[in-house]
């Protein structure tokens, strides 16, 4: 696929992107209500806690497909297609947009189990993508 359009991190999501340098998927958590927050914020939109109540924790990298589409772009758009774009529900309870990649990408469907995999970016960060996890087909 052509070059990724990945911008800078927001002030609140720096730790997410820094962890991707080590291929670690981390999530922001609110320790006051024990729930993860996505996207990262300066406060917990559930209970309004902020400051030391917010922390970063490793995620398992496992999830299931919540919704999935296959892009059929005209050749004129200059990108290889088809490819799959999905919303994935992580075990921890947050939803991420991603691409499903790998040999089974186009046969993935809603409720297919997936696990994180990484695509290197030019600046040393890695972009989290997901591949079908045979072990966790739901």
């Amino acid at each position: 696929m052509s070059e990724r359009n990945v911008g800078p991190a927001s002030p609140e999501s720096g730790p997410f992107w820094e962890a991707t340098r080590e291929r670690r998927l981390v999530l922001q958590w609110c320790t006051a209500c024990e729930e993860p927050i996505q996207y990262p914020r300066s406060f917990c939109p559930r209970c309004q806690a902020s400051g030391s109540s917010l922390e970063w924790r490793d995620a398992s990298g496992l999830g299931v497909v919540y919704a999935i589409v296959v892009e059929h772009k005209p050749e004129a758009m200059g990108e290889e297609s088809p490819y799959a774009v999905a919303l994935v529900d992580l075990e921890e309870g947050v939803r991420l947009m991603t691409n499903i990649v790998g040999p089974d990408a186009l046969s993935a469907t809603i409720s297919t189990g997936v696990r994180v995999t990484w695509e290197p970016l030019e600046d040393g960060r890695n972009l989290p993508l997901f591949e079908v996890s045979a072990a966790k087909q739901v």
Partner: protein
Amino acid sequence: MTGTLRGAAAIVGVADAASPTGELDRFGRDLETAMVLEALDDAGLTLADVDGVCHSQSAMAFAEYLGVHPQYTDSTNTGGSSYEVHAEHAAGAIAAGLADVVVGVYAATPRSDRKQRRGGGRFTPNGPMPAAEWEWPYRLRMPMGPYALAASRHMYEFGTTPEQLAEIAVSTRKWAVLNPRARFSEEITVSDVLASPMQVAPLHLLDCCLVTDGAGAFVMTSAERAKTLRKPPVYVLGAATCHDHMIISQMPDLTTTPGAISGPAAFSMAEIKPDDVDILMGYDSFTITALLHLEDLGFCSKGEGGAFVEDGRTAPGGSLPMNTNGGGLSYTHPGAYGMFLIVEAVRQLRGECGPRQVEGAEVAVAHGSGMVLSCMSTLVLGTEATL
């Protein structure tokens, strides 16, 4: 003018931030959020009480960050006076019962932004747009991608089929055939829709709205003055709005839009039930969009939209005339189509629609959908007989 705002609403909490150094150590969404939380605390309220959000750039983006689902939204930007305009509009909304607790906010840190070289490009002082950070890298094609995601989920949860979505395009085209100004005027079949090129599966080309030029306008005045003017008045019987996200990955449930809040609220204000609606102008950016409106506005139960649109129920002669101008799918769609919903609803209620006129129409609903199923606004319009 009728009515007055005098004494109808009150400011109950305030906050501000400033420093003798001329600099603040917080900025962007963090600073905006801190101000809102402080002002709410000043009032003895919390975010859970908030049902109205004003922001001079995007009340939708800020509400998403706050995690609130407001039914009153105001992104008016008049420069430095935006916040007085927000207060004026909020007072009007509260006086009319459209909102109970409205927050307005402002934050800017030009001095520290310059020093710390924040801003520029996609990085506003608020940080990159969440879409840039969490969605753009994955190359979901806009605008059809988010709607295709919703369609995929609706198909999975309720067994909705591509054929059922296609029925919407087919029925809408039948209306377009009756509108001499429609972009497309040839009848189509379900097979035509399914044979049209796949765009973002499961959506085909004929599941998608047009791209055309287009323009429209409306004029509104008091009911009293309306009676003295040239055309039969079309009255606003009810109106309500709700947004629950800005970007699709933040939508709480891809199969239920905030129309499930705005629709019933507007119908209740208008004192009507879905059965009373003679014409539904439901924003059809895509076939799935129209299907979701039918469910969320209560014309059928959640999940039953696919079966509802079979057998031409929304076509000419059907029990629920929908998008009688030919819709965004076949009439016109310049990018933001909501104006055309209102114009057609008014013309139908005035009886001006010629071959596509729905005889005896007295109640019409213009239901607009903004961004990516993000903000729904429902307007119930009626003839004099409905008052």
